[in-house]
């Protein structure tokens, strides 16, 4: 996931995060698909592209390819709409209200000696938004509107942090100066230390652990700017 000055650039930056997994993948866009981006997408094997709308010349490019499906939604769903979500369990199901939480810079509480720069704040919020949509335990590294590494679905947060950094290294992405988002608190300093060692300089996490003091101390020792969101965004 990434942003860019053009859709094509955003696609390139997103692809750079994990070109391996992109094979046979699904590309989701939040803006009108143009021909330049369509051409890029069709360079690698892609199953589905979903976009709110598409230019005619972009559609024409897709018509030539047999096994790619282009889904045009006609709009974007409103992420703030409340409603139920369901989880299956044996003999029944769990119903919960959708996670409509959204953060603004004003929601962030700086807990370290060093406060984040404006760039870091933007990167932290971007990373945290992505972490919200990653299966727990989730660790996301991001910088300048580009996802650099994702650690998803691990049994512990430290492993997620390690895997996210490993992925970034595999694809030659530099984590120095990046922001690290953790969708739930770090219970111990180990995950944060892992992130700091990988080069990240800003950490965003919900806070609220009895180990917060130790995690803050570890952040201060490494000159990390850390903010607490007060909101956890688990997704199982």
């Amino acid at each position: 996931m990434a942003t860019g000055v053009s859709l094509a650039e955003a696609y390139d930056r997103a692809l750079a995060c994990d070109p391996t997994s992109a094979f046979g993948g699904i590309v989701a866009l939040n803006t009108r698909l143009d021909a330049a981006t369509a051409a890029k997408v069709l360079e690698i094997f892609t199953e589905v592209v979903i976009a709110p709308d598409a230019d005619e010349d972009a559609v024409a490019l897709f018509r030539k390819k047999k096994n790619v499906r282009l889904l045009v939604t006609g709009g974007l769903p409103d992420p703030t709409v409340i409603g139920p979500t369901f989880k299956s369990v044996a003999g029944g199901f769990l119903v919960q209200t959708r996670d409509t939480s959204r953060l603004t810079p004003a929601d962030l509480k700086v807990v370290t000696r060093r406060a984040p720069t404006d760039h870091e704040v933007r990167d932290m919020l971007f990373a945290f938004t992505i972490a919200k949509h990653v299966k727990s335990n989730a660790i996301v590294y991001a910088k300048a509107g580009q996802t650099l590494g994702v650690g998803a679905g691990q049994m512990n947060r430290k492993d997620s942090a390690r895997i996210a950094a490993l992925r970034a290294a595999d694809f030659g992405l530099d984590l120095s100066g990046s922001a690290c988002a953790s969708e739930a608190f770090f219970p111990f300093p180990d995950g944060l230390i892992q992130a700091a060692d990988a080069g990240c300089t800003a950490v965003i996490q919900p806070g609220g652990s009895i180990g917060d003091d130790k995690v803050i101390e570890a952040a201060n020792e490494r000159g990390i700017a850390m903010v607490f969101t007060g909101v956890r965004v688990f997704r199982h």
Partner: protein
Amino acid sequence: MPAAPDFPPAPDRVPVRRALISVSDKTGLIEAARTLAELGVELVSTGGTRKAIADAGLAVKDVSDLTGFPEMMDGRVKTLHPIVHGGLLGVRDAPEHRAAMEAHGIGAIDLVYVNLYPFEQTMASGADYETCVENIDIGGPAMIRSAAKNHGYVAVCTEPSDMAEVLEALKAEGATSLSLRKTLAARAYGRTAAYDAAISAWFAATLGESAPKRLAFAGELVQTMRYGENPHQAAAFYRFPRPPAPASPRRDSCRARSSATTTSTTPTRPSS
């Protein structure tokens, strides 16, 4: 969409002068009927429920005495009558409604206690097709829905625990409150929705439809949870109703018969 008529606001407290009781599950029935009788409530009932109440030595009218119509068609038609539904739906404080009730001899019914023919259990037990069909309650849901719509004046109970709440209110306050009647109405529509969901699921399974046009099912609340995946998400755990899929040979007999010969079928007469 019909605009709401300009009714006077519903009263908060409504005393219960007359109750209509028609229950399949008779748990706690006699105790409830006795309490109502002691509170001076006139009891009206149907079939087996009426007999059970009468056998306990309590005064109870048969719904046929009100309607002047006999129970007919194997009990398919007994409460589907304007005397019953007018008594449930009439807005007591609306002059035109009041006049219509007086003109047609419709007496208000302030409390309805109906639990439905046990379609879900009948279906789950693997009963044959005709028995399943015969256990689709029509009059019961109709009364529940009428009473629930007119919750401004009528309290509707669909299970013993509802009845217990109403009796508590009547003993303590001598009336039901509007908020209680609203709560009961909401539960009542949940109950009839679940009932229809079970029927449609059974039908779909009987016809072998794996993707019916509308897939309805009702969960039954087991418990609310502290929270969902995150503390800002409210959550609850629901149990599925019993699966309608025909699995055993007995259940297979629930499939539609092509001929009209319904030889061995003796529908278990719903007990109300």
